[in-house]
């Protein structure tokens, strides 16, 4: 029997460290400064939106706006529901049950994370469209000759877009739910079992409510990614709000209107986040004991065992193995199109940028999450929330915000230097990899901050109090207490940012220096000319470089569970 007792504190926490650090301390000031830097590009978009421009709203409202809203909502709900279903179910199975290949699924479930949504969309269109092999075989089998003879679901549709995005985005929910299930103390689940709850009952009445904050963070990341997507909905011709933003911007040549639409989207995201917070009310769950031991797993038998295998295998097969096989087939004809040195250089750029972004994003995210924990002023919290909204802004629009911010900074430095010293400094940051990295950090702050914050909130504030009473300052407490306890969350943050940065297109394309390519920009270059075969080797490389960290991540999480031994 477990010797620990874990308590669920269902009340407002003693505001983390209500204790006496004032506003003027490096954590608070640092957090505010970093948040300010991250807000600048969003502020630039507000500035663009406020500029005089042709009014776009009455035209949109009377024509396509209702459709944009409908499509966007359905897409978000569909992908949200799909990713919760797959992500939570598979996370629960691999964390608490025993069934064939369960240890393999622990990491394999993450593989689709490395697959860009726009790539999987191309692959599945080739397979399932009218001209694809599936429908061809069906026509041959049943003697159908034309489209009018039968019904087949249209892949380039809202449903298709939901399926594609669900397949590659569910790992966010899986990752965060799994971390949450593993961090749950055995005692809670034991108590639930002792009190007569079966596996289902324990899941719905104890484990899921405890994991809810993590699941919510996972799903909000998924939804923000969904809102952000351009490649998939463009290829499928699904008129979402994001597509509308690009249409107003590029076809109607109205960047002001586009910025206004983008901000509307942001407000929508804010409302969504607030609604969830309100629904969760003031409940906070803490695990108050540090004692753990491996969770006894539910041994699945008979059909249940194979159902569990199917539930875990299907998303991996569809979201990773099949598309990789198809890409490999395409790539085989195009392997010689780059010299090895070019390919290595592009891969090197991808890895350099992604590593830089991952490390910096997690340092910053940790700093901010801890800054808030130390002094949870409403104002500071609000600023940080706004700062992490970059994830929900369509990439190219955010890139424009970064362009404007850095352009203004560079040109004002240049102007000052010219006036004062007669020297022109030109553009110091614009068009450098600093600009690209800045864009990544603004974009991915939500990932790093979110993961770290999710882990930190589960550490009971009593820990901080105890450390303080033993004479440790905030830095020492962070290093000795929090970081060891949230290692899993930190690893998650590093890898999520790394893998997402590997796949990132619009910011890289728009902000990059001259003659600078990454794997993702190579894919973009060929895919934009309808040359999927030529894009395949680089797409595969993105996937390949994404897999390794994903597997490392899974191992890190496995070993991060407090009290976890081998097996």
């Amino acid at each position, binding site marked *: 029997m477990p010797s620990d007792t874990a308590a669920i504190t269902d009340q407002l926490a003693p505001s983390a460290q209500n204790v006496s650090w004032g506003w003027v301390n*490096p954590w608070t000031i640092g957090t505010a400064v970093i948040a300010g830097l991250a807000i600048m590009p969003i502020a630039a978009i507000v500035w663009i939106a406020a500029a005089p421009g042709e009014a776009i709203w009455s*035209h*949109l409202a009377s024509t396509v706006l209702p*459709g944009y809203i409908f499509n966007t909502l359905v897409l978000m709900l569909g992908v949200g529901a799909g990713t919760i279903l797959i992500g939570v179910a598979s996370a629960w199975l691999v964390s608490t049950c025993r069934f064939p290949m369960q240890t393999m699924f622990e990491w394999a479930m993450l593989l689709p994370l490395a697959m860009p949504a726009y790539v999987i969309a191309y692959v599945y269109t080739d397979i399932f469209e*009218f*001209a694809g092999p599936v429908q061809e075989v069906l026509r041959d089998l049943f003697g159908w000759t*034309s*489209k009018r003879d039968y019904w087949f679901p*249209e892949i*380039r*549709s809202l449903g298709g877009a939901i399926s594609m995005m669900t397949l590659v985005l569910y790992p966010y929910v899986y990752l965060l739910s799994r971390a949450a299930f593993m961090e749950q103390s055995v005692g809670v689940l034991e108590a639930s079992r002792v009190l007569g709850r079966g596996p289902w009952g324990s899941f719905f009445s104890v484990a899921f409510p405890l994991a809810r904050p993590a699941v919510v963070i996972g799903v909000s990341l998924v939804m923000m990614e969904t809102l952000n997507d351009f490649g998939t909905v*463009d*290829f*499928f*011709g699904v*008129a979402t709000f994001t*597509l509308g933003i690009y249409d107003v*911007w*590029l*076809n*109607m*040549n*109205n*960047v002001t209107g586009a910025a206004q639409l983008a901000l509307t989207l942001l407000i929508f995201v804010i409302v969504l986040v607030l609604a969830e917070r309100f629904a969760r009310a003031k409940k906070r769950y803490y695990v108050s004991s540090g004692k753990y031991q491996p969770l006894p797993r539910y041994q699945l038998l008979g059909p249940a065992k194979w159902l569990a295998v199917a539930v875990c295998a299907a998303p991996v097969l569809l979201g990773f193995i099949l598309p990789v096989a198809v890409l490999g087939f395409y790539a085989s*004809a*195009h392997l010689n199109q780059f010299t090895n040195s070019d390919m290595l250089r592009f891969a090197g750029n991808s890895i350099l940028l992604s590593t830089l972004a991952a490390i910096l994003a997690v340092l*910053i995210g940790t*700093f901010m999450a801890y800054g808030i924990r130390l002094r949870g002023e409403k104002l500071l919290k609000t600023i940080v929330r706004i700062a992490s909204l970059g994830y929900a802004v369509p990439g*190219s629009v955010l*890139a*424009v915000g970064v*362009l*404007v911010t*850095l*352009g*203004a900074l*560079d*040109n004002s430095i*240049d102007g000052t230097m010219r006036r004062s010293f007669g020297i*022109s400094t*030109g*553009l*110091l940051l*614009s*068009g*450098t*990899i*600093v600009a690209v990295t800045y864009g990544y950090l603004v974009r991915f702050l939500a990932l790093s901050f979110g993961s770290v914050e999710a882990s930190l909130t589960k550490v009971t504030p009593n820990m901080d109090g105890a450390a303080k009473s033993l004479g440790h300052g905030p830095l020492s407490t*962070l290093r000795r207490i929090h970081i060891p306890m949230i290692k899993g969350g930190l690893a998650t943050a590093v890898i999520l940012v790394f893998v997402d940065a590997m796949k990132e297109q619009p910011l890289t*394309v*728009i902000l990059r*220096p*001259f*003659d*600078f*390519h990454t794997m993702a920009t190579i894919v973009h*270059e*060929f895919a934009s000319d*309808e040359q999927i*075969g030529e894009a395949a080797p680089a797409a595969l490389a993105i996937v390949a470089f994404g897999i390794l960290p994903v597997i490392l991540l899974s191992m890190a999480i496995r070993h991060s569970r407090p009290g976890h031994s081998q097996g």
Partner: protein
Amino acid sequence: MLTYNNNKALKTTVLVLGLASIMATEAVMAKAEEVKLYSERQPFLMKPLLEAFTRETGIKVHMVYLKKGMVERLRAEGANTPADLILTADIGNLHNHAKAGLLQKSSSPILQANIPAKFRHPDGLWYGLTSRARVIFAHKDRVKPGEVTSYADLAKPHMEGRVCVRSGKHMYNISLLASIIAAEGEAAATEWARGLKANLARRPQGNDRAQVKAVYHGECDVVLANTYYMGKMATNEKSPVQKKWAASANLIFPNQAGRGAHVNISGAGITSHSKNKAGAIKLIEFLSGHVAQKIYAEGNFEYPVKAGVALHPIVASWGSFKADAAYLSKIAEQRALAAKIMDRVRFNN
């Protein structure tokens, strides 16, 4: 950033120094004459052309390929922009840059000789480098000769359920609709868009090649696509199935009895704050010259703007055609309206 142990501090220092050295290297390398461009045309396409230019002139060329945000990048960089010129794949983008005041006037006897007046801005704000027509691909058997000869035919009742097109919001279709607005007015263009929408065999989707693929597979009989895709598909050794798609369709130049087929250009313009205007002009002169025009024609199946440059045999096999003579800037002016008309008729729904 706060560093909380020496190891971290060291790493941060290394990182900062690394970034600084990358920037410093760029500064040192800016010695030899060079031209910098923002390009909407892909690097793989431009590479042979730019290498030939460097061989001939010794001028190095650096580029950033970007499709969206070029106007915004130039605007944000202002007077300090490193870019000397822009390359675009469509008149719309050239026009938008010119309208935003991001391009400067230029003139050169060579450019005037190489590029016909209809393909360049009267003050030299932009220059067309290649042209392509937006044409109809019709299935060889299922579409009878004479059944479809104009854009208008695509919107007539006899084509119901037989037409495929990509998104109505794609720039190629926007430009085509803009050309119809320029020629026939807003009301007629709206009617056309509505009629075309009513005839679609499927919701607008996929890219230009996907439309021809749909013809091959019997999903539709006629589609709209740009001329060069026919050449690219007909010669695709790496994906030979595309040859079959191309072979299943005839290329029909629309409106030959009327105002002619809609033609768009790829082109170039010199930025207002170019640091090397002379070099930029040299590059445009080179790109409009015989050698480069031949590379464009052979590598990308486009129509050269320079007279006397041979077409690719496949392109030549389609025969000569009458092009819409409307001035391209006039058409580009109508793009925003075209996008709105697509909204009004709910083309993509």
